C-alpha cells in the first residue's frame, strides 16, 4: 500500500512528507515505520527501478528518483512535460554556468532573450512566472532564497535537491557544450566542478 501511495504522490513531483505517510498509510503500524519504509524502498527499486531519497533529513521529506541508467532518446514524458523540462534544463544550465546562484533579475533578463517574459502568457508555458517561481520550486527543481536587505525584495535562484538528483553538473555542462558547439573543457572552472 505504501508503495502505491508513494508512486501516486511522486507522479505530481511534490515531495512526500513522513507525516503524510504515517497518516494515510501506515497509521496503526507506527512502530514498524522504519521497517515498512525500508521494505517499500526495496520494492520500489526492485520492481520500478526507483530510489526513495530523503531530501530533507530534518523535515523528513522524500522524493523518488530514477535509478535506471539514462537512455538516449526515448524520454518517458508527454509533450507539455517535455517542453517544461526543456525550459528547466536551460534555467539549470544558466544557474550552473553563472556560478550556481543567480539573481532573479539576471534570470529573467536571460529568459527575455529567449522570448520568455514574466507577466505575459507564453503560448507553451502559460504563466511562466508561476511556473518558474512556484511550480519548479515546489517540485524542488529550483531553490529560491531572498536576498536580505533588498528593497524591493530580490531573490536568488539555485539548483533544488531534485535537480541535483535527477541530473548532474557534468550532464548540464555537456548540454551547454553541445549547444554552443564547444568542448566542455572550454569552461575550466565549471569543468573542474562538474
Amino acid at each position, binding site marked *: 500500500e505504501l508503495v502505491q501511495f508513494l508512486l501516486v504522490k511522486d507522479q505530481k513531483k511534490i515531495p512526500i512528507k513522513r507525516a503524510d505517510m504515517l497518516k494515510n498509510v501506515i497509521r496503526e503500524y507506527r512502530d514498524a515505520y522504519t521497517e515498512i519504509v525500508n521494505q517499500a524502498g526495496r520494492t520500489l527499486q*526492485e520492481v520500478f527501478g526507483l530510489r526513495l531519497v530523503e531530501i530533507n533529513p530534518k523535515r523528513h521529506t522524500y522524493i523518488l528518483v530514477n535509478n535506471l541508467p539514462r537512455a538516449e532518446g*526515448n524520454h518517458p514524458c508527454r509533450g507539455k512535460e517535455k517542453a517544461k523540462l526543456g525550459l528547466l534544463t536551460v534555467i539549470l544550465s544558466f544557474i550552473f554556468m553563472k556560478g550556481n546562484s543567480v539573481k532573479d533579475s539576471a534570470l529573467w533578463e536571460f529568459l527575455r532573450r529567449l522570448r520568455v517574459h514574466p507577466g505575459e502568457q507564453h503560448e507553451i508555458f502559460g504563466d511562466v512566472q508561476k511556473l518558474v517561481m512556484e511550480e519548479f520550486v515546489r517540485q524542488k527543481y529550483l531553490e529560491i532564497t531572498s536576498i536580505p536587505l533588498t528593497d524591493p525584495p530580490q531573490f536568488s535562484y539555485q539548483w533544488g535537491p531534485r535537480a541535483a538528483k535527477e541530473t548532474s553538473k557534468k550532464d548540464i555542462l555537456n548540454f551547454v557544450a553541445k549547444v554552443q558547439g564547444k568542448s566542455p573543457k572550454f569552461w575550466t572552472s565549471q569543468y573542474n566542478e562538474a
Partner: protein
Amino acid sequence: NTAMGAQMTDAHRRFLQILMSKGIIEASEARKLHRHCCETDKVYYAHDKLDDFIGTINRYLQPLFMQIRKGMSEEDGRAHYAVVNLAETEVTKMASDYTEIELELFRKTMDLIILSENGFASSTDILNLADKLKTKKMKKKEAEQVLKVFVEDKWLSEKNGEYTLHTRCIIEMEQYILSNYQDVARKCNICHSLAIQSQVCESCGIGMHLPCVRKYFKAQTEPRCPQCNEFWSCDIP
C-alpha cells in the same frame, strides 16, 4: 522472492516506468518498447516473447495489487497494454489528480455513457449534468475545460462532440464497471469483455464490440446472430 521464472531486470523496470508514464500503449508500440528496453539495458531480446516479458513484470506487480493488462480498443480492435490497480474499488487512481467536483462530474459522465444505447454521451448532456452536481455547480466553461483534461489524460475520448470511455479507462475500470453496473453493463458475446460501444441483436439482445462484429461476420455472406440465428439487423462496420 519469486520461486521460478525469469528475474526482473533493468529492461523490465524501464518498460514499466515508460508504460506507467504513458498510461496506455498500443501493442505495436509495446513491441518496439520491448526491443528498446532490451537493447538499452543489454538484456537478451526475443522478439516474440513480449508476453513472457510482461509476465515477469506482472509476477512482481502481483503482490502490490497491480498488473499490466491487455485490452482491445473499441474503435479499431487493436490490442493495448495498460497498468491497472487491482485493489481499488473506486476510481481511486484518478482520485489524486482531480478535485472532488471533477470526480463527481466524471462519475456522472460515466453513468451517462454506460447507460446510453451507443456508448456515447453528448457534450450537451454532460454540460447539463455539470449544472446539477451535488458538490457544487460547475459552470459551462469550467466543465468544458475539465472534459478537455479528461481527454488529454486518456480517461475519455471524444468524437464529433460526443464522449465515450477511453480504451485506457475501460482496461483500468473494467472490473469496477462490471461489478457496479452489473445489470446495465454489456459484455461482448464474442470476446466476453466489457463492451461500452456495441451492436445489439434486435431479437435476443446480445451485444458485440464493433471490431468483433467485423471479424465475426467477415467470412459470412449472410450475417446471422451467433446466439439466436436471426438475421443481423445492424450495418456491419
